[in-house]
């Protein structure tokens, strides 16, 4: 953003195309992002293949590999997405991060609901500004939340990056044009999101992070499931419901936002119905005039 683009207190006058036109993005940015994704997937597969489903008396190095693999992958994704994001989007990200932390801390760790609601800000940024901005918001949000209030979330950074990016991809496909499509997209995103979080929940925290989620893990282990199996089942159930609710809330927030804000983000126009887009277009013409 520069001073010509804005009228103080009124936001940007000109629009930009976050996530859509990236004329100056270097190739290494894409390579780093792809490398980060590969590292996370490889870590997940390696943990499934090589590590026992239940930790023994001596914890071994499983936690180290899970932490290193996921955090290194998230760091590569953050480094790769940084050049893909217009500087103007940086103004949106702190709000989204604060939103993730405020809602996530209240719902995820201090209430007995087996949900998290800690990626609402990342999803909104993904929908408004694209997958790269969504992923970076997820990474930074978890790191900031981790070092200031709740360090346990640092290990879930890879999953947070995926959810932010997936919201951007879903928005590009038009999943936020109707409430039920948003819910379905959330359900789909919740499956890999839950799978990615399961090894972390199992091997770093023994499934005992939240009161609600921990109760489900305890029940499943009592029913005979192994540690990783119990946390995977819990994560899949919680994450699919959680992401469906978050995507629905993001859909509602998008419609509740003033058109002046929404029309700054061309990608967000794809998430509005044809009628809403016409409305936003008319507003833009009125403003231009």
């Amino acid at each position: 953003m520069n001073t010509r683009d804005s009228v103080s207190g009124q936001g940007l006058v000109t629009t930009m195309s976050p996530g859509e036109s990236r004329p100056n993005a270097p190739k290494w940015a894409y390579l780093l992002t792809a490398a980060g994704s590969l590292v996370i997937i490889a870590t997940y597969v390696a943990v499934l293949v090589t590590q026992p489903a239940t930790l023994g008396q001596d914890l071994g190095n499983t936690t180290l590999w899970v932490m290193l693999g996921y955090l290194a992958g998230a760091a590569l994704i953050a480094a790769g997405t940084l050049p893909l994001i217009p500087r103007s989007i940086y103004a949106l990200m702190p709000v989204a991060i604060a939103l993730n932390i405020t809602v996530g801390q209240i719902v995820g760790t201090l209430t007995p609901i087996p949900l998290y609601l800690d990626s609402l800000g990342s999803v909104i940024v993904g929908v408004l500004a694209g997958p790269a901005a969504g992923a970076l918001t997820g990474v930074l949000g978890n790191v900031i939340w981790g070092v200031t209030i709740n360090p346990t979330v640092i290990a879930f950074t890879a999953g947070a990056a995926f959810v932010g990016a997936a919201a951007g991809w879903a928005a590009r496909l038009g999943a936020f044009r109707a409430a039920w499509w948003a819910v379905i997209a959330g359900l789909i995103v919740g499956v890999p999101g839950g799978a990615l979080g399961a090894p972390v929940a199992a091997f770093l925290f023994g499934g005992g992070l939240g009161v609600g989620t921990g109760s489900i893990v305890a029940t499943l282990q009592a029913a005979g499931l192994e540690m990783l199996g119990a946390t995977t089942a819990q994560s899949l159930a919680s994450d699919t419901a959680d992401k469906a609710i978050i995507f629905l809330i993001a859909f509602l927030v998008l419609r509740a936002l003033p058109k002046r804000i929404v029309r700054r983000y061309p990608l967000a126009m794809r998430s509005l119905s044809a009628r809403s887009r016409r409305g936003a277009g008319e507003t833009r013409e009125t403003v231009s005039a």
Partner: protein
Amino acid sequence: MTAMQGRLSEPGLERHSRTSPGSSAILHPATELVLLASALLCIYGIPSPVVPATLLALAVITAAASPRIALGRWAATFAVLAAPMLLMVGLIQGVFYPGDRAEVLWRWGAAAVTVDGLAVALQLWLRVAAMIAVCALFAFGSDSARTFDGMIRLRAPLGIAYVCATALSLIPLLRGQVSHALEARAARGWNTARLGTRLGLLPGIIAGLLTASLVQLDQRHDTLEQRGFGRVRRPASLQEHRDGRVQRAIRWAAPLASIALVAGAVSGLVHLPSASEILGAIRG
């Protein structure tokens, strides 16, 4: 939600009414960040309960000795975050541990207290407790300006440093605005004590928050642009910080030493007592 918010501690977040924590800090914020990362690497990289137990004890001593950290608030934060984890991991792994060959101490139906389960639960909790303790130390002695200066000193990209520092300053503001929005709706007759009502009100509240925050941020952004933010790669520090050769040496030595320790532990060159060895020694 308001009551829950009241329980949330505010380490590391903006404190407008108090003197900046940087004014009495011994360490540069960059040194603190490096030490924090090194401690986290040791906690998760060395598979011995001795490491998290030692770091937990060091954190308690530092919190008690530091003039910047109120021990009571630090202890309350630690208790709020670590106690539920101890309870849950103790229940899940201590009572419902799924290992086949675990030594059973007491059984009642599906519940069984096992030695392995208790060992796993205690070690996992020790690690998380140590992590919470050292992160709380950093958070209580920090604010958004210190974080910004620390990140810039560590050569983090300016945009990332700006986003992190701004997010830190926004969290208490956002929490205050959520409280005000809920109070306003309660005054209009909504039963905001009900979770279902709160979830229903969430989209409207968040849309209002986003709009207000974006306008505020635009104004901040305008001000920063007009002051030349981003024109130089390494801007001057926002606050004065003590720094010197010793701290620069610590910033290099701490990560190198922790990496060497972890590599030694993984390869078997460095041996610290494992949980089974400690249990064996206790049993004689």
